[in-house]
């Protein structure tokens, strides 16, 4: 695969707007008045708070212990005092809340004791545990825990570093690669060793020549055989699956991960954080954030996790006509509903937007099926078909046309001549499908519970009746034995008293019942006995089945079938 690049279908070339913020070196953001550190830092797990209000904390001190497999630790980004532990709104399109530790910095930046981690001397598991304890998560935006991604330790052929950064306006990875190339590559070497990959490739869009040059120099100096590969600038080449496709030719289908195909992909920022964690023993406390758009002073800032965006934005001096702040890029980002929310480990960019910068889209017009969207779709979907299906609430058909393969990159909406917000339609369809599936599974569970309850009641009733009958028969048999009547010889002798026959049958039932309550003995029963038991079981079955079977068709999960299975297992 050396040297050869692959193409992915579609893609678009929006105006890059990288120069605005890429010119200036990374600056360190001043300490904010307070830091709001969310305990939920990785995608799926919230850390357990281990500090109290009023407690003094040091920079880098663990304040949240990781919980669960997907959990990562959370640390105090600077030294100071914990002033509050409470739910706080996050940087989220729906302004979701999560539990946060609010720290008032003392301005001294006193570090907790920390030392490099000798990962050569440690086992692989210990190294992963160290990364977990350092709170390392993917910094490309998804914040997936890195120790999980490094998981298997076998079967990975190629390690890919993602320096694509294909979204317009964002330049934090660009600046990081220009200024800290050696650290990134050192982190990459650690990642490669931990994951056991044979080769290592860094993919960088060719609109970042300075970053490519810096990384190539560092790669030459490091001598670790890292390949720095410029890739064509074509949004969304920096998407993980698109980048893997471009560099290796491998296509990762929906629902699968790179690891399933021998490729693993990390953001360059993550590699940098890994390097700091291993070589310096520093947990992940800050990240580079691009502040750009409708501002006087666009640039990249090294920002402590938990810094309120409101305060951070002032550094870039937004112009007066700024009407929104967009987190992420213009293609996939979202307008922040509130600005008193903290920077987290996945926050890469905040764009100050104005009506002139991002004008409202022209009114939506009818779809003319021009297929521009299909030509642009990197997932090779037919977005206009999905749009028609979504509009008509034909969600089954939308799924059939692979709606869930949509990565919501926005290429289709970007090129649509009818100005249809296609991605909105797809998000709507997806959430409708999820909601329906939830409803359906809830209804299924309720139905199953109800049916099982009916079945159980019927069974209990039948069992009770059988028990009573057996008891009555026993008493009658005793009475008969005690009296003048001879003991019944066989169950069905012709010409005998019908009463006696009845008693005999009841007796047989009682015996069978006795045999049945000791299932461990059934192995040693004679064939006659087994036949008898089967006979009785069949009768009981008939009695038990009638009620629930009346309104349920026989199938694998209906009560009738359950009874049959039940009876079989008892035999």
């Amino acid at each position: 695969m050396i040297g050869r690049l692959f193409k992915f279908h579609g893609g678009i070339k929006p105006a890059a707007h990288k120069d605005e913020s890429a010119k200036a070196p990374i600056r360190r953001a001043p300490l904010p008045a307070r830091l709001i550190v969310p305990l939920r830092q990785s995608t799926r797990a919230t850390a357990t708070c281990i500090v109290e209000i009023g407690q003094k904390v040091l920079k880098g001190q663990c304040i949240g212990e990781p919980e669960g497999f997907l959990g990562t630790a959370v640390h105090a980004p600077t030294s100071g005092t914990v002033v509050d532990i409470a739910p706080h709104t996050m940087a989220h399109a729906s302004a979701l809340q999560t539990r946060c530790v609010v720290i008032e910095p003392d301005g001294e930046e006193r570090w907790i004791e920390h030392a490099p981690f000798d990962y050569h001397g440690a086992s692989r598991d210990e190294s992963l545990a160290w990364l977990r304890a350092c709170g390392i998560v993917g910094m490309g935006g998804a914040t997936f825990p890195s120790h999980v991604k490094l998981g298997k330790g076998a079967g990975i052929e190629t390690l890919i570093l993602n320096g694509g950064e294909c979204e317009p306006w964002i330049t934090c990875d660009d600046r990081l690669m220009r200024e800290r190339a050696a650290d990134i590559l050192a982190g990459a070497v650690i990642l490669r060793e931990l994951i056991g990959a044979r080769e290592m490739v860094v993919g960088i869009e060719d609109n970042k020549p300075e970053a490519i040059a810096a990384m190539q120099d560092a790669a030459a100096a490091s001598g670790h055989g890292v390949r720095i590969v410029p890739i064509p600038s074509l949004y969304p080449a920096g998407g993980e699956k698109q980048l893997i496709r471009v560099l290796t030719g491998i296509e990762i289908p929906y629902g699968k991960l790179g690891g399933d195909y021998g490729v693993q992909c990390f953001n360059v920022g993550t590699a940098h954080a890994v390097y700091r964690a291993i070589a310096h023993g520093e947990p992940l406390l800050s990240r580079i954030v691009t502040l750009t758009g409708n501002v006087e002073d666009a640039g990249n800032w090294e920002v402590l996790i938990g810094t309120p965006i409101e305060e951070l934005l002032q550094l870039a001096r937004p112009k007066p006509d700024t009407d929104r702040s967009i987190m992420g890029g213009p293609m996939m980002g979202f307008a922040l509903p509130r600005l008193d929310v903290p920077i987290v480990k996945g926050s890469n960019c905040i764009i100050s937007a104005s009506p002139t910068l991002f004008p409202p889209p022209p009114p939506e017009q009818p779809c003319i099926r021009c297929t521009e969207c299909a030509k642009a779709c990197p997932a090779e979907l037919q977005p206009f078909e999905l749009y028609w299906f979504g509009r008509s609430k034909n969600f089954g058909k939308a799924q059939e046309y692979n709606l869930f393969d949509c990565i919501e990159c926005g290429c289709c909406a970007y090129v649509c001549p009818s100005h249809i917000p296609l991605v909105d339609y797809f998000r709507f369809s997806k959430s409708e499908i999820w909601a329906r599936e939830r409803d359906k599974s809830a209804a299924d569970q309720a139905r199953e519970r109800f049916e099982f309850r009916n079945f159980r009641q019927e069974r209990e009733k039948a069992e009770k009746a059988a028990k009573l009958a057996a008891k009555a028969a026993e008493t009658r048999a005793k009475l008969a034995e005690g009296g003048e009547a001879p003991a019944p010889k066989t169950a069905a002798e012709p010409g005998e008293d019908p009463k006696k026959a009845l008693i005999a049958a009841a007796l047989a039932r009682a015996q069978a019942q006795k045999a049945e309550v000791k299932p461990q003995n059934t192995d040693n029963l004679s064939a006659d006995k087994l036949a008898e038991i089967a006979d009785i079981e069949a009768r009981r079955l008939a009695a038990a089945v009638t009620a629930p079977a009346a309104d349920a068709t026989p199938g694998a999960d209906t009560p009738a079938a359950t009874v049959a299975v039940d009876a079989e297992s008892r035999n």
Partner: protein
Amino acid sequence: MIHSPYVRKQVSVQRTMGLVLLALLPAIALYAWKIGTGILVSLALATLTALAAEALVLALRKRPVGIALGDLSAVVTAWLVALSLPAIAPWWLTVAAVLVAIVAVKHIYGGLGQNPFNPAMVAYCTMIVAFPALMSQWPAAGALDFDTQLGLILGSARELDAITGATALDALRTGLRADGASVQSVLQGPAFGMAGGREWEWVGLGYLAGGALLLATRIITWHMPAAFLGTLVVVSGLFWLIAPGQFASPLFHLASGGTLLAAFFIITDPVSGATTPRGKLVFAAGIALIVWLIRSFGAYPDGIAFAVLLMNMCVPLLDMKTQPRVFGHRNEAGESVRTGERRP
């Protein structure tokens, strides 16, 4: 609230339709110059009718009129109807055809983007079935001055043989069927030029130039014109080689009738045509095949309109059966792709 993406390409339906109109101009100019300026009257008449009908129906449907009129789609339909009809057709024929296209075909199905059939082609079919005589009276190239043409359009009496000529396809049909002549001898007649109808070849070149513009601006893809013209050439060529006396040459098929208009402007209608790359190929090839069959054996001189409508009916099936492979799904099918073998 507005969601991402916050940036959009500078495109619109209006721009698309405007480019189609622009691409029609070379052919219209050549039409007016080589055949007769009457076409300009027809075009104007059709445009006015289309805009009025569109506005009226939109108002009745309580839809915003301004945006829909501004998208120019009604004008495109009007021009295609006018170019499909004889340029000297009486005014009421053009008006009726445009009304069929706009009201019955476009808006009754729900307006722009909703019609399963090509509006201009339904209009053409309706007219040729209803008024076969009027629909077969085409102006002989350059034979009529503007006043005569205008008079014909406005409804003056028609002294047909003197003023109108049969089209090349018509002449060939009549020659072959009625007179029992061979293709070669029929083609010596006054209606024929170098390749197709005399002087009409110029109009065809105009459509070709417009098609090149549409391809260059990526309004249309290569699939449909290539499959349509390719199939027509292959099928007609095959039979022409076998029996040159009975079947017209591929060049004649390309240059006659509405072949080039259809290849770049009619079958490429996105709304009623197939949408997948493979679907487009089958769709266009199917039209070409039916066109050749109708031209060679059918009751009508040119079969493009019927062929288009027949294939319009197949579009849902074609689209369904030719869905392209989705990213990553090749792996599941086990087809050729680097599968990233794992290390042992």
